[in-house]
């Protein structure tokens, strides 16, 4: 199908090119409007980021005296080096680097965990005839109505009783069950033609092999899309890590910002530059992940490769 479609494309576009001469002008106007709207959007969204970044390159005295800056301050290297390497916190052992590492562990662990669990759940629901499969799916699905904030006390209780406070597993494992992910994968698996599994059965592939050899490669773009969403969600977790970890060694970047600000309130002049630098650092990895994987991301959500 795909081939036939692209085969037909060139003549269609050349037809358009021929008739294009007249409606060309209004079209380019529309283009222009599109770009103006997009430019405004970019300005609104990126403006504060740019200001935050520029301000972070000034020293804290200037910021305290003159407010946010829109010029290059020249303290870039110094500030960022401080944020990354200077030991801070109550125990004086936490560096920005360590917090970045914690954030990465949380973000990646969260995303990978969710993908593994929801893929397996969807696999079971779609391909295996077990009693109450549909019911199980809807029960999983209704958990969407119970976000973390609603069940945070019992969740804390459970994690505490399991002795998982102040550990990476305590940060990650209780969060990796995902109704959204299960739903996405279920829909995707359902769109894979039944003949695929039948062909695989004739080719002698058992359930595990079918999963590894056929389903996982077919879900590649889907996995990438969900990884991005979940990584960003995991990276931006604030409430959960705050409750689960009290040792500073487990602090994430997002918590670090708040922590530095809090500490600085006691000092004479808050070190705004470092807080802003940390905010910029905290935004960077999710932004990078999205920029690098955006093509796969869109493909995974829009296109179904079959």
């Amino acid at each position, binding site marked *: 199908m*795909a*081939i036939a479609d692209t085969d037909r494309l060139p003549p269609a576009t050349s037809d358009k090119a021929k008739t294009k001469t007249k409606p060309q002008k209004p079209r380019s106007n529309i283009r222009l409007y599109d770009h103006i709207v997009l430019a405004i959007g970019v300005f609104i969204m990126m403006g504060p980021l740019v200001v935050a970044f520029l301000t972070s390159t000034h020293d804290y005295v200037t910021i305290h005296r003159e407010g946010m800056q829109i010029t290059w301050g020249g303290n870039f290297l110094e500030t960022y080096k401080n944020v990354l390497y200077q030991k801070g916190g109550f125990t004086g052992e936490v560096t920005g680097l360590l917090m970045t590492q914690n954030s990465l562990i949380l973000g990646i662990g969260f995303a990978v965990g969710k993908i593994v669990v929801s893929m397996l759940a969807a696999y079971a629901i779609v391909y295996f005839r077990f009693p109450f499969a549909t019911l199980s799916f809807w029960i999983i699905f209704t958990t969407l109505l119970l976000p973390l904030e609603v069940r945070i006390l019992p969740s804390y209780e459970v994690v505490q009783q399991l002795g998982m406070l102040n550990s990476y597993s305590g940060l990650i494992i209780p969060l990796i069950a995902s109704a959204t992910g299960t739903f996405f994968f279920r829909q995707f698996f359902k769109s894979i*033609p039944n*003949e*695929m599994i*039948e*062909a*695989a*059965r*004739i*080719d*002698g*592939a058992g359930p595990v*092999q079918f999963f590894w*050899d*056929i389903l996982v*490669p*077919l879900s*590649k773009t889907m996995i990438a899309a969900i990884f991005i969403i979940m990584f960003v969600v995991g990276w931006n977790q604030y409430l959960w890590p705050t409750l689960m970890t009290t040792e500073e060694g487990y602090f994430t970047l997002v918590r670090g910002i708040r922590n530095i600000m809090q500490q600085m309130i006691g000092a004479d002049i808050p070190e705004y530059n470092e807080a802003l630098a940390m905010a910029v650092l905290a935004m960077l990895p999710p932004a990078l992940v999205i920029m690098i994987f955006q093509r796969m991301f869109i493909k995974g959500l829009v296109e179904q*490769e*079959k």
Partner: protein
Amino acid sequence: MTTLRIKDVFKRYPNGAEAVKGVSVDVEDGELVVFVGPSGCGKSTMLRMVAGLESVTEGEIELAGRVVNDLEPAERNIAMVFQNYALYPHMSVRKNLAYGLKNRGTPQAEIDRKVDEAAKLLQIGEFLDRKPSQLSGGQRQRVAMGRAIVRDPAIFLFDEPLSNLDAKLRNQMRLEIKKLQRSLGTAAIYVTHDQVEAMTLADRIVVLNNGLIEQVGKPHEVYSQPASTFVASFIGAPPMNLLDATLSDGRIEIGGQSFAVQQTQKAGPIKLGLRPERLQVASGGEGFRVEVGVLEDLGATRLIHARLGDQDLTIAQDSELPEPSSEALITFRHDDAHFFDASSGRRI
């Protein structure tokens, strides 16, 4: 020798629906048997039971001398070509062909040899490193057949493999499948709802209707000696004319006209079957008069849609056409008349 023996097979679904109601067929070595019938007649279910993709409710399926009812598809030594090909989209053609062999634990050298052999046979050698999405429909079809061939099966199972192709390619691939199956000498079951495919491909045709076998026979037998009105109307295009008639004393009466026939055993209401291509417009002799309606010129033949009393009748002929809305005299040879029981539809 018999490759496949299907003995009194039933398929009942948990909701009580019966898809196959006691089918028995043998497929001899090297024979191509076509299961044909309208959709929902149980032909695909039958094929899927042979493949092991559906369980058998009752009866026995014996492949190459052993009962395979409870064997997994991979253990049955069958190969199947699906309607939508079911190629693995993320694997190259080579990997698609090799996947089943790899799972069987075939040594790599032998896999390579078999894949290359099949590729050569099907002329897909230059596509071996492409993905299925980069191939045309006909090429994908070849890859699907290649995947079946490399397995070296006891029997090929084709599930309407040509229905996704356009008409021209379909004719070409039909011929290729036949040649290929001949040269490999492997038995095959081919499921289709297309009677032209059935007629051209089959060594033997199995006509299925409603989960039961209507008739088994060589294409020519099924065409010239249809066992029931269902077969008569299903095989042949345009379909056989089936007219309500009354038989008595060696004469048959339709719509107020009567003429002599050789069938004398039975008196009473019957169905008279007449193939459109065996009817002739004549200038004189014994026959019946019809009212000419719409005419269709198909190039090779011309179809006359006529009315005999209050019944419709189609005549195919290649000579001059009568005038529309005129009267014409239609004659036929006695051998070309088929008689069916009016109530059961079985051949008399």
